[in-house]
């Protein structure tokens, strides 16, 4: 029993000693920290007394100036971004324009390629008809050619109207005759108000090889979804008319020469057989 009590007292004594040691260590740490802080206070006092405050004032000024510089730089960058964005918009608009031009050139290339792909007169007329429907968007029109012997312009192919409905026109008479004489295109002033008149088409384009007019394209009605001509249509029309005229002229020449050749061949056959 006594031994137990002695052991307990001993254990408690050891515990107390441990606590005391820890307290001593903590007190020593506090003293060290206190010393460090006192040293730091001294350092700061020394720094302040040697003009530390003035130096921080200069720093503030420098920093303020730097901020102002950075603000100016930021504004400049923002201005440049705005400028680049404006340029981008211009480029995007230009890209669309170029794409449109590219499409028109591609259409024109295909149309002219088709027109010059044959020397058959009827086929050339068929191709011109297809081009006017598919590229120009016309529903009723006539391809009219000039007979240089009689000075009369007559329909050789029509779409949407009967060929017999289109009266022949004398060179210089009416809208068609005027266009064939002057070589200048005619466009009605108001497409919506236009009423079909076979002697005065809505649009009349001369078929010209250089300055020599061989006929006209007379348009009386556009497709219902085609309300008006876009600016590019006028240009496209003129360029196509030029190619159409050449194709008509070449195919006619070829047909005539073929006919003459076959006549000559007939004579030769008669004489030699």
């Amino acid at each position: 029993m006594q031994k137990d009590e002695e052991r307990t007292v001993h254990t408690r004594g050891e515990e107390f000693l441990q606590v005391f040691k820890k307290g001593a260590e903590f007190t020593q740490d506090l003293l060290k920290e206190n010393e460090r802080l006192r040293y730091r206070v001294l350092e700061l006092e020394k720094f302040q007394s040697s003009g530390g405050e003035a130096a921080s004032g200069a720093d503030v000024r420098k920093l303020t100036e730097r901020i102002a510089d950075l603000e100016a730089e930021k504004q400049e960058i923002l201005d440049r971004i705005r400028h680049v964005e404006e340029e981008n918009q211009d480029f995007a608009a230009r890209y669309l324009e170029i794409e449109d031009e590219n499409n028109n050139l591609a259409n024109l290339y295909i149309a002219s390629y088709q027109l010059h792909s044959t020397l058959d007169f009827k086929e050339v007329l068929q191709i011109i008809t297809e081009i006017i429907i598919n590229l120009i968007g016309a529903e009723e029109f006539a391809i009219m050619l000039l007979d240089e012997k009689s000075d009369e312009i007559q329909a050789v192919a029509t779409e949407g109207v009967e060929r017999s409905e289109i009266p022949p026109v004398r060179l210089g008479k009416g809208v068609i005759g005027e266009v064939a004489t002057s070589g200048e295109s005619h466009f009605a002033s108001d497409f919506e108000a236009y009423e079909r008149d076979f002697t005065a088409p809505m649009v009349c384009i001369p078929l010209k090889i250089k300055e020599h007019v061989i006929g006209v394209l007379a348009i009386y009605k556009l497709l219902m979804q085609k309300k008006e001509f876009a600016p590019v249509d006028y240009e496209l029309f003129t360029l196509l008319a030029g190619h159409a005229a050449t194709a008509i002229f070449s195919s006619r020449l070829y047909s005539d020469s073929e006919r003459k050749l076959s006549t000559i061949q007939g004579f030769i056959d008669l004489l030699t057989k």
Partner: protein
Amino acid sequence: MSDYNVLIVEDSPTMRQLIAFALKRIRGVRIVEANDGVDGLKKLSSERFDLILTDINMPIMDGLKLVSLVRNDANYKAIPIVVITTEGAQEDRERALALGANDYITKPIQPTKILDVAKSLLRIA
């Protein structure tokens, strides 16, 4: 090896070329041309297509009949069809769409429109 097979059914060679030229801007596109609906069906039976563009007014078999036949055939009914035509009336458009056409473009030809519709139906971003 092409990524997309496109069938153009149109009786006008000029129009076929104009459509083909517009579509060739899509990378990896292969174009097959047919003169009319019957020719189109013949081409359809010989290979797989990802898109059909057809005119309405054609000899032998018109475009609407072709749309109807394609939509009623289990082998082809999933192929998107675009009708390109001179017929601009609303009822013509509704009729073509009711028969199963996916889009309806009117002439005169606008390459940008054809390209946009084809890209959308071929799911090209």
